[in-house]
C-alpha cells in the first residue's frame, strides 16, 4: 500500500499513482492492484479515493447539466445545437417552449435562428444518440445580450471556485451577471461595456492559470488594479473637459 504522488502534483497519462486498496476516482484506471493516471492533470487523494483533476478535456454531455449552445441548423421540428462537445445536441420544438407551436404553419427561425446562442438543460443522453436539450427550465432560453466566452470545460470548476468563492468574488468586484455553462461556455453581461471586456480578460486568465495556487487573490488584485486605473482615466478626462 503506497501512494506515489504528492497532493496536487501534475501527473501524465500512464503515471503510477498508487498501489493498494484505494478507490478509483475520476480519470484513473487500475491494472492488478496498481492505479494509474489516464490523463494530464492534478492528482489528488480524497477520502481514500484517487482522482486526477484534468487540465484539459472535452465536454461529455451529462443529464441535468446547464449548457450554452449555438444553433447550427434549423430542422422541421427541431434545432441542431453545437454545445462545444463531440456530440451536437437536438432541441425539439416540444421541449423548447411551454406553448404549443404548429410547425406546419410557423417558421422556427422566428424562435431560434442559425447563429443564436441559447441556454439549455440536457434532459437525455445515452451515448448512442445525440443529447436532447430543453429550454423550458428556469434561466434557459435565447441569449439576446451580453457576451459568450469559451474556455476549456476542465477549467469550469476553477472558475466557480470552492463553494463559489471565485465567481462570488468576481460578482462582488464587478457589477455583472454571469451564467456558467458546464460545457465551457460562459455568458456574461455588464451594464458597462468596459466591465464586460475586463470580465473576458479575467476569465481567460483563470483558464490559463487554473492549476496555480493563490489565484483568487491574484484575480481580485487584477480587477481592483484595472478599476483604479480606469477610475484615474475617467477623472482625468473629466478634469480635461472642465479645463476646456
Amino acid at each position, binding site marked *: 500500500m503506497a501512494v506515489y504522488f504528492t497532493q496536487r502534483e501534475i501527473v501524465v*497519462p500512464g503515471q503510477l499513482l498508487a498501489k493498494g486498496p484505494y478507490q478509483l476516482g475520476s480519470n484513473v484506471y487500475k*491494472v492488478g492492484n496498481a492505479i494509474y493516471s*489516464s490523463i*494530464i492533470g492534478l492528482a489528488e487523494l480524497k477520502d481514500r479515493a484517487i482522482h486526477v483533476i484534468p487540465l484539459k*478535456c472535452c465536454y*461529455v454531455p451529462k443529464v441535468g447539466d446547464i449548457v450554452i449552445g449555438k444553433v447550427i441548423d434549423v430542422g422541421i421540428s427541431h434545432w441542431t445545437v453545437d454545445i462545444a462537445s*463531440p*456530440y451536437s445536441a437536438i432541441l425539439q420544438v416540444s421541449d423548447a417552449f411551454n406553448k404549443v407551436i404548429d410547425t406546419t404553419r410557423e417558421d422556427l427561425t422566428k424562435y431560434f435562428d442559425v447563429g443564436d446562442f441559447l441556454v439549455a438543460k440536457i434532459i437525455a443522453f445515452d*451515448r448512442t444518440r445525440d443529447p436532447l436539450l430543453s429550454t423550458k427550465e428556469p434561466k434557459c432560453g435565447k441569449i439576446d445580450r451580453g457576451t459568450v466566452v469559451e474556455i476549456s470545460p476542465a477549467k469550469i470548476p476553477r472558475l466557480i471556485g470552492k463553494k463559489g468563492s471565485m465567481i462570488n468574488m468576481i460578482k462582488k468586484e464587478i457589477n455583472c451577471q454571469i451564467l456558467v455553462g458546464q460545457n465551457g461556455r460562459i455568458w456574461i453581461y455588464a451594464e458597462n461595456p468596459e466591465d464586460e471586456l475586463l470580465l473576458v480578460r479575467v476569465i481567460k486568465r483563470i483558464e490559463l492559470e487554473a492549476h*496555480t495556487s493563490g489565484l483568487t487573490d491574484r484575480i481580485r488584485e487584477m480587477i481592483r488594479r484595472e478599476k483604479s486605473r480606469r477610475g484615474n482615466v475617467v477623472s482625468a478626462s473629466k478634469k480635461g473637459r472642465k479645463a476646456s
Partner: protein
Amino acid sequence: MLSQLVRKVERPPRLIDEEGRRADGRKVDELRRIKIEVGVLKNADGSCYLEQGRNKIMAAVYGPRELHPRHLAMPDRAILRCRYHMVPFSVLERKSPAPTRREIELSKVIREALEPAIFLEYFPRTTIDVFIEVIQADGGTRCAGITAAAVALADAGIPMRDLVAAIAVGKVEGQLVLDPMDLEDRYGEADMPVAMMPSLGKITLLQADGLMTLEEFEKALELAMRGIKEIYNKQKEALREKYLAIKREVEVT
C-alpha cells in the same frame, strides 16, 4: 576523378570508427539529442513539436470530434485516424506532396501503435485525428512521429493508458546501434523500430528489416527498451513543463 568523389559520398569509409564512435560522434548506445515542445499550435486541441537530431516533426491532434462521413463511426467507440506525411522539402530531393505508398503504410502502422494506448471506448461515434508532419527527415521519423503524436494526444487531454514512446535499433558493421540516422539506415544491415507503452511494459509496434540473429534481436530489443525509457522521461518532462512554466511565472511572490 568525379567517379571517385561520387563513390566517396555514396559510401563513407567507416560508420563506426576504432573507438566505437559513430559518424556523428555518438556511442553505439547513445540517442540523438531530443527536444520536445508541447502545445505549439493554437488551433489544434493538442500539439507537439519534436526534434530528434536533425529530425523535425510536428504533431497535431484534433478531437474527439464529430465524424464525417458519418457511416465510418463506430457505435461503441471512437475511431483513430492518422496521417503521417513528409513535406516536400523534408528531404534533399523534393518529395512529391501526394501521400506515397510508404506514407500510407506508415500512417496505418502509427495508428496501430497509438490505438492500444487510447481509451477509445469513452467517446463512441466520434473520431480522434492525428496529423504527423515531417518537416525535416534524417532517419527514424516513424518512431519520432509516434513519440510526438503520443505527447500531442496527452496534451489534447485524451484519456490514455500510457504514453507511447518509440525508437529504432539498427545494425551497422555488425554492431547494434541505438537510434540510427539516415546514413546508418541506408548502409546498415538491419533496422528495427520499436514502440512501447513504457509504464505498462507493452510493445505496440515492432518492425524489423534486414538480417539479425535471434541473439542480436534480443539484444536489440533490450537496447530499444533502454532508449524508450529515456525518451519517455523526456515526454513526461515536456508535458509537465507546459503547466509548470505558467506556475513558476505567476507564483513568484
